[in-house]
C-alpha cells in the first residue's frame, strides 16, 4: 500500500459527529461517505437495491398468501423430515440456517485476518466460507428435488393454495442464486489473496489496477447480505 499523501491538510481536521456530521457530510461539493472507499460505498448501494428486489418478492408472497381463499400449506409439515425414525418439523431449514450463520462467522474472521495482512489465514477462512455456502446450496438442491418429487409445481401442490409453489421457487431460487454467485465471488478473491496479489500489488486482469485487502471486506458485505436475506426468508416463509 502506498504511503498516504497529505496534499489536503484541511481534511485532516476532525469531522463533526452525529447529526451535525450527517449535514456536513452531505452538504457542499465533496466526497459524501467519509472513511468509506468508492468500492465499499458502491457495494452498499448495490445491496440497497437488492434489498428492494427481495422486499418485493416477500411482498408478492404476502399478497398471494393473504388474498387466497384456499388454505396455505403448513410449512412446518411440508419441510419436515424423518430422521432416525423421529419426525422433525422444519429440521432441514434449521440446519441450513446454522450453516449460513457459520459461514458468516468465518467470513467476518476472514476480513479481520485480511486487514492484518495474514494471507494464508484469510484465504483459508474464505475457502471455509465458500464451502459452507456450497453446502447450503447443496441442501437447497436436496430440498427442491424432494418437493418436486412430492408434486410441488409453480402452478399447484397437493396440500393447498397453488401460489405456494410459485412463491417458494421464486424466493428460495433467487436466494440460492445469490449464494451461488457469492461462492464464485469468494473463490475468485480467495485465489487472489492466496497468490499474494494485495501484497505484491499485482494488477487485476480486467481492471489493470492494484487491489487492496479491502476487497475482502467488500466480498464480506455481499456474503453477510446473503445471510441477512435468509434471516427474513426463514422468518416470513418458513416460520410464519
Amino acid at each position, binding site marked *: *500500500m502506498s504511503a498516504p499523501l497529505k496534499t489536503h491538510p484541511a481534511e485532516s481536521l476532525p469531522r463533526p459527529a452525529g447529526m451535525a456530521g*450527517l449535514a456536513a457530510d452531505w452538504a457542499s461539493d465533496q466526497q459524501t461517505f*467519509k472513511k*468509506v472507499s468508492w468500492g465499499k460505498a458502491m457495494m*452498499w448501494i448495490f445491496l440497497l437495491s437488492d434489498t428492494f428486489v427481495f422486499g418485493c418478492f416477500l411482498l408478492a408472497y404476502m399478497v398471494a398468501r393473504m388474498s387466497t381463499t384456499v388454505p396455505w400449506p403448513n410449512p412446518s409439515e411440508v419441510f419436515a423430515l424423518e430422521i432416525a425414525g423421529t419426525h422433525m418439523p422444519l429440521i432441514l431449514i434449521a440446519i441450513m440456517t446454522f450453516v449460513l450463520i457459520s459461514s458468516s462467522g468465518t467470513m467476518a474472521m476472514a476480513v479481520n485476518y485480511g*486487514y492484518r495482512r495474514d494471507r494464508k489465514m484469510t484465504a483459508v477462512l474464505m475457502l471455509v466460507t465458500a464451502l459452507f455456502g456450497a453446502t447450503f446450496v447443496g441442501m437447497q438442491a436436496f430440498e427442491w428435488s424432494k418437493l418436486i418429487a412430492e408434486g410441488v409445481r409453480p402452478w399447484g401442490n397437493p396440500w393447498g393454495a397453488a401460489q405456494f409453489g410459485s412463491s417458494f421457487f421464486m424466493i428460495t431460487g433467487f436466494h440460492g442464486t445469490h449464494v451461488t454467485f457469492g461462492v464464485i465471488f469468494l473463490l475468485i478473491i480467495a485465489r487472489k489473496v492466496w497468490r499474494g496479489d494485495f501484497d505484491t500489488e499485482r494488477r487485476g486482469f480486467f481492471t489493470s489496477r492494484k487491489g487492496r485487502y479491502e476487497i475482502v471486506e467488500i466480498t464480506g458485505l455481499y456474503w453477510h447480505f446473503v445471510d441477512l436475506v435468509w434471516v427474513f426468508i426463514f422468518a416470513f416463509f418458513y416460520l410464519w
Partner: protein
Amino acid sequence: MAHTETHAEQQQHPIKLYLLVWALLFVLSFFSYLVDYFGLQGFLRWSLILIFMMLKAGLIVAVFMHMAWERLALIYAILLPPLLVLVFVALMVSESNYVLLTRLAFFGSSP
C-alpha cells in the same frame, strides 16, 4: 487513485466480538426454531418470530457488516430507504384484503 486511500479506514475489531455475535446468532436461530417446534400460535408466534428476526438482522448489519462504526451519512443513506418498503406493505395489506373479499363475494368459497 492514491487520494482515496487517505479516506478509507480499516475496520479492525477483536475476533472475540465476532465469536460472541456468532454465538448470539446461533442462540437466536435456535429460539426461532423452537417457536415452530413447540407449535406456538397466534400473536405470540408472530411477535416472537419478528423479535428474533430483527435481533438477528440487527446483529449482522451492525457488527458483521460494520455498520455500527460507519458515519451517520452512510448509515442513513442505506438503512432509511428500506423503511419505505413498510409503506408498500401497508398498501398491499389493504389491497390483499380487498382481493380476498372480492373473491369471497364472487366465488363464494370460504377461506
